[in-house]
Every structure is written in structure tokens, then in C-alpha cells.
């Protein structure tokens, strides 16, 4: 249960960074913290008490085309697969955002939001 709470807190702290911080890189850091929080939430949603990792590599567990281990003792593999994707997507977005920030810096020599309010109204 504390994992849920912790992930939620991470998400909210990350969002708070995006809402309040005036520095562009700080905002991206906030978003990446939020990503971590979400990933952790997904993993903890897939956890099963007393379960093992979804890798069945011991000979004793799988014989003659049938699974010997109790299914409910293996944690849910699907959320893990989803998180794999989510992490990669997260790094892609971060890289994209940072490259935009680098370009913005090369134009205005600043990475403060206050210098990027030209588009409005």
C-alpha cells in the first residue's frame, strides 16, 4: 500500500514542479519524476503478494508442456511489459524536450519561462 502512496506522491510532486517552477529544465525534471511515479504505480499494481518474477527458468517448474507452479504465485507480467514501453517513451520525450530547451537557450540565452511569453492572447 505504501507503494501506491509513494507513487502518487511522486506523481504529484512532479506535477507540482511542472506547475510552479519557472525554469524550463526544472519543469522537465518534474515531468520525469512524474514518469517515475507512474511507472512505479503500474508495477505495484501488478504485484502479487508472495509472488515470484515472471521468469520460469527452473526445470522443476515446467515439465511436459505444463506449468507446475501455482499461477497465483507469479506476479502479473503485463504491467511490467507496459512499463518497459513507458520508460522508453519517457526518455524519448525527455530527449525531445531537452533538445528544444537547448535550442531555446541558443536563441535567447535564457531558460526562464519569463523570457518565453511572446505567444499570448
Amino acid at each position, binding site marked *: 500500500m505504501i507503494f501506491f502512496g509513494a507513487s502518487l506522491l511522486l506523481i504529484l510532486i512532479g506535477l507540482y514542479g511542472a506547475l510552479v517552477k519557472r525554469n524550463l529544465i526544472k519543469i522537465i525534471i518534474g515531468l520525469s519524476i512524474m514518469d517515475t511515479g507512474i511507472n512505479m504505480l503500474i508495477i505495484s499494481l501488478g504485484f502479487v*503478494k508472495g509472488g515470484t518474477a515472471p*521468469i520460469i527458468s527452473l526445470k522443476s517448474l515446467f515439465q511436459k508442456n505444463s506449468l507446475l507452479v501455482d499461477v497465483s504465485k507469479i506476479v502479473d507480467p503485463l504491467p511490467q511489459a507496459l512499463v*518497459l514501453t513507458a520508460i*522508453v517513451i519517457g526518455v524519448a520525450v525527455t530527449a525531445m524536450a531537452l533538445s528544444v530547451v537547448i535550442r531555446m537557450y541558443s536563441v535567447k540565452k535564457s531558460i526562464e519561462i519569463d523570457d518565453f511569453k511572446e505567444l499570448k492572447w
Partner: protein
Amino acid sequence: MRKIVAIVFLAIIGFYIISIFSAFQFGDKYKGVSEHYVKEGIIENRGANLVTSIVVNYRGFDTLGEVTVLFLAATGLSFLLFSCKCEREFKRIKSSLVLRTATDTLFPMILLFGAYIFIHGHLTPGGGFQGGSVIASGVMLLFLSFRSFHPNHKTLSTIEVLAGISFAGIGLLGLVYAKSFLANSVLPLGQWNRLISAGVIPLIYIAVGLKVGAELSGLISDMISTTKED
């Protein structure tokens, strides 16, 4: 002021999201498709690592999308950073002797380790993405230690393209052989828990590993290299 408003509204959202957790007990059993994956995964795919089975086979389409996202990020990054017609330049401070010597020994091993990870993706934890990023971290080490190092972009691109095309191509082969895109029926499934098993899963993971490795290396090199005007 802004901070207070943010905290208040985030608290409201947090309050509502917490209510979800009352419905999902931590550590509860799961139902639905995952049961199928766990029960039938090995039988259908002969891969010991169920996560790999899901990532490459059951939800292989997601992975194709994921590879695309990374490819997109690498492309977009170099599109943005080099949209002016400046020459690229690679200048960094000189690194220490210790680092350079260590790199000489470590780099091949890191590459090998990365390759191991993605080749054994269907058997052990890890796979294309993990292996690829390990390889990229090896390349990163080269960046740190050698002042004038920069990878050959043509080679990287070629690896990337071939790997990408073979991923999609394997998918299309599945369409030809089994009337279903990305179907795992091009190769025989083989024996469970062997290196050569699980049909096309290792092949796909090798392609993904190479592609991710090349992409991330290119991405890092793009980030680090500067243009002359800076």
C-alpha cells in the same frame, strides 16, 4: 500564490485518485488476460521470460511502436539541434589516464554484455532495450574518455535502418506465413529454455537491441556534439 493554488488543486486530485486504491488491494491476485499469459505463455512461445513473451509477441505491436518512438526522438533531436547549417564540432576536455585505460578494457566487455542481454532476452531478465542501452552506455564511456571520439553516423544509421527494417520485415513475414502481422510462426518454436528457441523472439530482440543501441548512441553523440557557433 501560485504555489498555494497548485498545492490545493493537486491535493484535490490526489484525494480523488487515492479513492481508486481502495478498490485495488496491494498485492492482490490478477485476472483477465495475464492469467492466459502466465498459463499459456510458455506453451505458446517457449520463452522462459514471460515479460519478453508479452513484449515481443503478445504485444509486439507496442514494441514496434516503442522502437518507433525512440527512433522518432533521435530523428527529432538531430532535426532540431542541427537545423542550422553549421558544422558539427566535437571538443571536450581531456580525460584522465585511468579512465582511458579502463575504457580500453571495459568497452568490449560492455558491448559483449549488452549483446548477451538482448540475445538472452527470452530466457533471462532483460532484452533489446536493456541491452541496447547498455551498449549505448559503453559508447558514452568512449565519449567521456576520448577527446576526439565521435561515432560514424553512417555506420550507426545503417545498423539502425537494417535493424528497423528487419523488425518490420519479420512482422510482414508473419503476415505472409500465418496471415497475421508479427505472428511467431516463421521459425519453429523449439525447446523451452534453450538459446535457440521461442521462434522469432530472439531475432526481434537482437534487432531491437542493435537499433536501440545505435539510436541511443547517435542521440548521445548528437546531444554532446556542439555546433561551431556556440
